[in-house]
């Protein structure tokens, strides 16, 4: 082996003394070239479709840009106008209510059902798929149409309400009931976080529960002292993801309200209002860009709060706490 290796080296033109020094940098350069070549699609997309547009929209937020007229610098006027805009404030309120009320209910449902399904031997996979299915189609226009029909005046839900003599007149047209209707649509899609919870539950070693049972811990104690702490990283992940998702409802609100966000702005979700301003009749892209940036800042702050507070309640095993 060594002999042939030496021989082949000696026959090369470069000379044996220079090669070892030269080999490393040239190989590193080749690696770098290969790295950027493979990364090229993402890099191009990142610059042209994400970073570039983000910077552009930051600039646009300070202009009164219109697709045909173009735009001129107006300073912070978009932002000051936003906070005087009752429809904008309504959209913030609608979106926050939806996120703050809807997300915990959805996650509680997801965790509850995950715990019911966990440790089941038979039918677990089937139920898991069945409960997951709504998450896959829940944001579609089709389901929005169904929801609207179900909750409409004389729709099926209204009939049930009529039967008990509690509600009638339809949910779609009643500003007080559109939010519960939208939250029900969100909770119906508890399957995605449930699947993630199930995967997390499977990771909790059974010995922990057995040891706790031997020590006389009841189901409630086992839940608060074992399940919740062990599951907290997954809970954290779901909480961040679902909160951010809840800020981005669009199709269902658009279809149910016919694109208007009514009645009385009760389904005027943030993204729907952003759409109306940017792409509706007005075409005020500068104003919409200001709204988009406020959304990014809000999502950033909320994520930061989640991450900052996480060390007080998220337990990572192996960290020795």
């Amino acid at each position: 082996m060594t002999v042939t290796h030496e021989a082949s080296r000696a026959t090369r033109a470069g000379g044996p003394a220079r090669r070892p020094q030269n080999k490393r940098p040239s190989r590193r350069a080749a690696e770098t070239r290969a790295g950027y070549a493979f990364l090229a699609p993402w890099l191009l997309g990142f610059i042209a479709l994400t970073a570039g547009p983000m910077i552009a929209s930051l600039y646009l937020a300070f202009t009164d840009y219109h697709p045909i007229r173009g735009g001129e610098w107006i300073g912070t006027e978009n932002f000051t106008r936003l906070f005087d805009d009752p429809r904008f404030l309504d959209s913030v309120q609608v979106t926050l209510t939806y996120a703050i009320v809807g997300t915990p209910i959805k996650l509680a449902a997801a965790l509850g059902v995950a715990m019911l399904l966990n440790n089941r031997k038979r039918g677990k996979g089937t139920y898991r798929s069945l409960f997951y299915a709504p998450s896959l189609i829940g944001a579609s226009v089709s389901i929005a149409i169904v929801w609207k029909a179900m909750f409409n005046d004389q729709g099926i839900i209204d009939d049930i309400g009529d039967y008990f003599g509690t509600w009638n007149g339809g949910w779609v047209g009643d500003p007080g009931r559109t939010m519960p209707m939208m939250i029900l649509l969100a909770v119906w899609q508890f399957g995605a976080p449930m699947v993630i919870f199930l995967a997390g539950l499977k990771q909790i070693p059974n010995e922990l529960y057995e040891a706790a049972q031997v020590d006389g811990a009841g189901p409630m104690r086992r839940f608060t002292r074992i399940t919740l702490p062990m599951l907290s990283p997954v809970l954290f992940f779901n909480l961040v993801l679902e909160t951010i998702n809840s800020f981005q409802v669009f199709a269902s609100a658009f279809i149910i309200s016919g694109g208007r966000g009514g009645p009385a702005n009760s389904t005027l979700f943030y993204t729907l209002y952003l759409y109306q301003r940017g792409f509706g009749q007005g075409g005020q892209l500068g104003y919409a860009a200001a709204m988009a940036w406020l959304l990014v800042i809000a999502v950033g702050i909320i994520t930061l709060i989640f991450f900052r507070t996480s060390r007080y309640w998220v337990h990572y095993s192996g960290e020795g706490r």
Partner: protein
Amino acid sequence: MSATILTDGQAAPAADPGAELRRRAKRRRAGKTLLLHIGILALAAVMLYPGVWMLLSSFRPTNEIVGQTGLIPDNTTLDNFRTAFEGIGGVSFWTFFTNSMILAVGSAVGVCLSCSVSAYAFARIDFPGRNLFFSLMIGTLLLPFHVVIIPQFIMFNEIGWTDSYMPLLIGKFLAAEAFFVFLMVQFMRNLPRELDESARIDGAGHLRIFTAIMLPLMRPVLATASIFAFIWSWNDFLAPLIYLRTPDKYPLPLMLRQYTDQTSVSDYGGQMAAAVLALAPVLIFFILFQRYIVEGVATQGLKG
């Protein structure tokens, strides 16, 4: 585990009462299981209700959909499907269907090509700047899509791409959906490094390692990614709504929107039939690939 077995073993030979107790406990557990089963079944029924109601309504004359609580229709009809297939505004249903199919298949192909290549760079090549780009990529995971739609719209408008599929597909071919890149990076990191190292020793370059070794092994994650890319594109509403103007270029969600706008309450039956037809491919996909889909969601959660 061992503790319970031990006490069991000691109690069993002692006396009959122990066995009787255990039998009772077993029966109680069986009762509890049955109760749980009924509870889960009831929940499943509630979860399925909207879908079943939609399906049955689509076979019902419109005047019987409104004000009907029962699931079983008195009269069934195929008229709803007939009107739905006629389409809207002189454009047939199949045109919209084909448009949706082009967009969804295009998205799946684009995502598989661009994200796998980029993920290989992140997972397997060591080059300066990789860590920085990786954190930037992770950062875009949580970025709301809405912040870029306005400048993207202006940009594509300037290039003259509005009312074409270019703005809807370009991002898929440029790995703009960080979720898929991340998914593939995670998958590749779990593949044994010895595979590509031995290939390197044999003189294979990155291109060869990627095409001959990585891609075949990545089949499961490519399946997950293409299924999700397909379904997300199939359901996408906002982007087509912004970019497409001519009805014969519309995908199904825009057709449905137009349908509900124009017929309103007068033709619930047609709306339901169109909604069923639009969802059918997604549901068929789900039934066929549910394992990939659900496992994809599960691993995504644990590795995030």
